[in-house]
């Protein structure tokens, strides 16, 4: 009689660890990430990451586009804080073209960027809460992300992929509704953030789940190219807004919160503290914006006809405006030759734009320094020897955004 035995792979009986695949789409990864882990019981022995599932060749696309058409590409990098990417790109272009922006534009930009930072940190921190079993905080703070999105909508008409602002300033002035909503946000949000903190910060379950997991020393974090809140949680006070101020950040008073251990708990605390700083920066910026009087109070863009689209009524009635309109839309403006590296403090770290122009109408080469692409490679080291359930928390507390990682 013939026996049909199952043939097992060589060595699979003696093997004491299990190979576990998580992702590419999995409820615990919050994005398109694949991890193949070798686990001994619930302890992680080693892991290997696969990235690139939503790679869209942005750097290649950018080589064929005039500057203003690259802004929508930057939306799709870190889509939790698109306005920072948009502003970063505009600031890069302005530095490259030596355009000076009016102070009011800078302050309005600061308001938008700090709102974006709050919405970014809010998502990240509340998701850390979800992964430790506390869903309430996440659902509660979503209302305020919604309010931030309504402010974006009032300014640029869209919510997630914002394409906000233009080279030289904003496409239109902020409406009164935008300012009313901003005031509402400034009045209501601090109380909500306070409640959110009291849900988590001294919560026994949350502390025990996050303290001592996913930690990294300052030296290792720097060697791994960490930036942003993740590096600051390890104790390095590097913040692009302070080190290389852009958009008049030097006019504001704020502190850079730092942690000590670089673990999940410290990352959470640093992000929360940064949200408080952001609120204070927005307040200061709003005061400064209100202090402008007369004609200055109406300024919302710099005078750069080569890059800033003229008003529609001028296009229909004035020859010069019509010419500029066509030249800009058709991408017929020659750029100067040169190279520039311009960083901004993104939601999750130093977002850099390396632009090379050979004097043509489009960038010769554009490279994005995407913070989470660089620090995600430390993930196997962060989770090695820990529990599988902690690896999930570590992943969400790193604030990985697949769109940025894969470019």
């Amino acid at each position, binding site marked *: 009689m013939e026996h049909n035995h199952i043939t097992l792979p060589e060595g699979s009986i003696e093997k004491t660890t299990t190979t576990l695949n998580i992702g590419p789409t999995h409820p615990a990864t919050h994005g398109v990430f694949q991890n193949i882990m070798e686990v001994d019981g619930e302890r992680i022995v080693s892991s290997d990451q696969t990235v690139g599932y939503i790679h869209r060749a942005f750097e*290649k696309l950018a080589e064929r586009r005039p500057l203003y058409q690259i802004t929508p590409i930057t939306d799709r990098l870190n889509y939790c804080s698109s306005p920072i990417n948009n502003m970063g790109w505009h600031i890069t272009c302005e530095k490259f073209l030596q355009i000076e922006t009016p102070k009011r534009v800078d302050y309005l930009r600061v308001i938008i960027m700090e709102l974006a930072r709050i919405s970014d940190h809010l998502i990240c921190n509340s998701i850390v809460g979800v992964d430790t079993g506390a869903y309430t905080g996440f659902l509660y703070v979503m209302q305020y992300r919604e309010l931030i999105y309504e402010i974006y909508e009032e300014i640029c008409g869209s919510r997630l992929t914002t394409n906000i602002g233009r080279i030289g300033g904003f496409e239109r002035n902020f409406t009164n509704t935008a300012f009313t909503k901003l005031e509402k946000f400034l009045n209501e949000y601090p109380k909500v953030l306070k409640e959110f903190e009291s849900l988590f910060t001294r919560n026994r379950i949350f502390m025990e789940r996050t303290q001592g997991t996913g930690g990294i020393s300052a030296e290792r974090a*720097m060697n791994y*190219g960490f930036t942003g809140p993740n590096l600051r949680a390890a104790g*390095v006070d590097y913040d692009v807004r302070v080190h290389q101020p852009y958009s008049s950040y030097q006019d504001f008073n704020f502190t850079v919160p730092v942690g000590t251990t670089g673990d999940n708990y410290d990352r959470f605390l640093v992000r929360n503290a940064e949200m408080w700083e952001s609120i204070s920066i927005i307040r200061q910026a709003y005061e400064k914006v209100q202090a402008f009087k007369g004609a200055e109070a109406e300024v919302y863009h710099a005078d750069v006809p080569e890059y800033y689209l003229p008003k529609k009524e001028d296009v229909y009635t004035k020859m010069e405006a019509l010419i500029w309109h066509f030249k800009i839309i058709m991408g017929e403006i020659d750029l100067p030759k040169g190279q520039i590296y311009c960083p901004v403090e993104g939601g999750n770290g130093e977002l850099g734009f*390396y632009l090379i122009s050979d004097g043509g109408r489009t960038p010769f080469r554009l490279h994005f320094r995407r913070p989470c692409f660089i*620090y*995600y490679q430390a993930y196997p080291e962060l989770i090695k020897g820990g529990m599988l359930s902690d690896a999930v928390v570590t992943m969400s507390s790193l604030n990985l955004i697949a769109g940025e990682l894969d470019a």
Partner: protein
Amino acid sequence: MSLSNEMVQEKLIAKFGDQVSQFATSYGMLSFESPKEINLKVLQFLYDEPSLAFTFLTDICAVNYPNQKGAELVVVYHLHNLKENIRVRYSVSTSLENTDVFTATKLFESANWMERETYDFFGINFVGHPNLKRILNVDEMDYFPLRKEFPLEDQTRIDKDDEMFGRG
């Protein structure tokens, strides 16, 4: 005493002589080049020399200049001294025939994926890299897409019947 671009330049010339060249400052950042054979020596010197201490690797990327014969591919390193808050841009060039460049992974863990990305898009062969394989593109790909020999489609072409996208 704060570090300035001129001091970095002086120290590099004192150490490497005329092997480091093309010093230029644009938008406040010092940039320079060297032959690709000594890239690790230069990076190590910038890292170890206490007065320079460029210990943070911000970025590695490559650029393809098809008209520079024998130096078509350029690898660009952006380094940062966080204490003095000064950045430098350092580049080495290599030909299309021999794309070997020494890896910086021994010095910076962060170089690992940056070099894999650079290999993926430009085909720079980082000698000594622990795991040099494609990262963002599929493994089966047999070309390096960000090189200039692959132009994007001309948007004004008329030979395509593509009614769906309004070009029919």
